[in-house]
């Protein structure tokens, strides 16, 4: 990581933290570009790229509704020494052009034996928000996590929204930063900006506890913490371990945590089958951690996401459901 500006503490929401990171990156890395649909003049449909066009001119621009062109051009520009930061407005839309991520970006370094690289960052956001339809609600991290050659992270706090993006853009490989639109306008928090950021990887213990380990990521982190708080009142100690980096994944920390509490639940918003929760459970199982009870996975059931909030709520994990399943895991 090159020289950084002086650290400073600011009160920022999640979306503002992303914006602050983008401003910093555009300043400290002249090879960065920011583009995507509506990210330039309008400043993004969630306002996250606001002000960048004004400050950085032609390095920030709007594109046609052409995800293959956005992603493909980012691969090409990255191969040529730029560091594009492109936005795919919803993770669901990446599916119209997944080829450029999987068959193109992820292959560049490996197939050229390191002679070419593709240091692009793809910012997107995902998940359900009340009223969103099935085509705007998916959590697709598991798809990307099966692709060697990509890095993937999912920040859940303003600080991580800032730090992870800085790390991602400095990374010399393609990185997918999956944000969550329900967090963009959350409460402002103190965020250290401008200084060095933590290295890629690692976990965040969001709630202490010694009876059970809950591994989670993304916006679900805060549902899990709520559940932990509920259960704390009942005398059940839930350790909530957030893994903001999913690739690289800190298997060691997760295995150690499960080994300490000897109970494991994995929580994610994505539907369970084939979700990354399976990978976490498999790694813990493979590590031979002696558990007191079989591990569980909590996620959306294997259905599509209905638009009606009353239906979606019946499917998405919330604090009550998490607490209920974790309680059963601990108490039997």
């Amino acid at each position: 990581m090159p020289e950084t500006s002086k650290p400073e503490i600011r009160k920022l929401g999640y979306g503002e933290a992303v914006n602050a990171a983008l401003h910093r990156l555009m300043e400290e890395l002249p090879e960065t570009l920011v583009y995507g649909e509506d990210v330039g003049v309008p400043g993004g449909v969630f306002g996250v790229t606001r002000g960048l066009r004004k400050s950085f001119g032609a390095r920030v621009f709007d594109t046609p509704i052409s995800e293959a062109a956005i992603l493909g051009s980012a691969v090409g520009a990255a191969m040529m020494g730029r560091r594009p930061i492109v936005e795919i407005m919803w993770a669901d839309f990446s599916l119209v052009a997944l080829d450029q991520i999987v068959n193109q970006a992820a292959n560049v370094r490996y197939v050229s034996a390191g002679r070419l690289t593709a240091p692009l960052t793809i910012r997107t956001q995902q998940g359900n928000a009340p009223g969103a339809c099935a085509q705007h609600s998916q959590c697709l991290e598991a798809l990307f996590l099966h692709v060697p050659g990509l890095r993937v992270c999912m920040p859940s706090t303003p600080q991580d929204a800032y730090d992870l993006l800085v790390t991602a853009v400095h990374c010399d490989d393609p990185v997918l930063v999956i944000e969550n639109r329900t967090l963009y306008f959350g409460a402002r928090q103190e965020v250290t900006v401008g200084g060095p950021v933590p290295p890629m990887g690692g976990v965040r213990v969001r709630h202490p506890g010694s009876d059970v380990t809950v591994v989670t990521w993304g916006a679900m982190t805060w549902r899990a913490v709520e559940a932990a708080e509920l259960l704390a009142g009942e005398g059940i100690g839930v350790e909530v371990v957030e893994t903001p980096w999913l690739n690289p994944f800190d298997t060691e920390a997760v295995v150690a945590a499960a080994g300490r509490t000897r109970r494991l639940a994995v929580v994610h918003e994505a539907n369970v089958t084939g979700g990354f929760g399976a990978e976490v459970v498999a790694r813990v199982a493979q590590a031979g951690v002696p558990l007191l009870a079989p591990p569980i996975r909590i996620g959306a059931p294997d259905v599509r996401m209905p638009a009606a909030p009353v239906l979606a709520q019946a499917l998405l994990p919330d604090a009550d459901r998490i607490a209920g399943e974790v309680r059963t895991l601990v108490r039997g």
Partner: protein
Amino acid sequence: MSERRLADLLAMWRIRAFEEKVRDLRLEGPIVGSVHLCIGQEAIPVGACDVLEPEDALYATYRGHGWAIARGVPVEALFAELMGRATGVNGGRGGSAYFTAADHGFHGENSIVGAGAPIACGAALAGRFDGSDRAAVTVFGDGAMNQGAVHEAMNFAAAFDLPVVFVCENNRYSELTPIADMVRAPRLADRAAAYGMPGYRIDGNDAEAVRFHMRDALEVAREGGGPTLLECMTERIVGHYIGDAENYRKPGELDRIRRREPIARLKEGLLADGVPAAEIDAVEEKARGEIEAAAAAAMAAPYADPATAREHLYA
């Protein structure tokens, strides 16, 4: 002549009153989530659907409320869908951006830009084999013209002479970005030539113009002449979605749009032709009455039952 125009006026008012009610319900709370209104664009669905046959298949976008209404989907079921009621066209599963009502020849909205175009090709293809005289219509925006799927669909339809009408609602913006900045050749209808199919840029704020071109395209299509692209010039009077601050508007832009919008224009024309103002105003009143009643009925319906949320994934 003025009878048809009064019918068009009523059809357009129905859509506009619906959309205005939807906006209120969205701002007041009963509707949640992202909603894209078609206020200002009503003449296109009204003109086009008037000449569709029941067996024709129609594929719209998230901005498709007007198309559903023009196709005859009961507005009560649409309101119910928007409010997550069991009586919604999709029982609450689709929401604003993903209505379907196949029993009314409305094969659905789609909230992936451009994705409906290849699907419409398939409906047209099916018509080759099922003995029907089906044509398929796919609707999308100006921005969608830059999406790969739309390109593939146009070539596919043209190469195979499929009876598809590609309706591009050019409202000059893709979300918040002017289409003029995203293409070099702003007359999108001219792209049809690339596929060897006819393309027309037409007045999308005139239901009669849309009706003529749609009928013509459908006739050609049914006779085996293949697809047509209709670029319908229009403008939305509202934001891209409810809540859009519309910072991208130029000074005076909305005033100009309001002068040209289809309902104002049609009313003006009717007045000029001597139709009494009271008769014209009664049309609006009638539509608003229907819409209010439908909204109230929808609101009284029970919410979708959460216990059913896992049903219908597989056969």
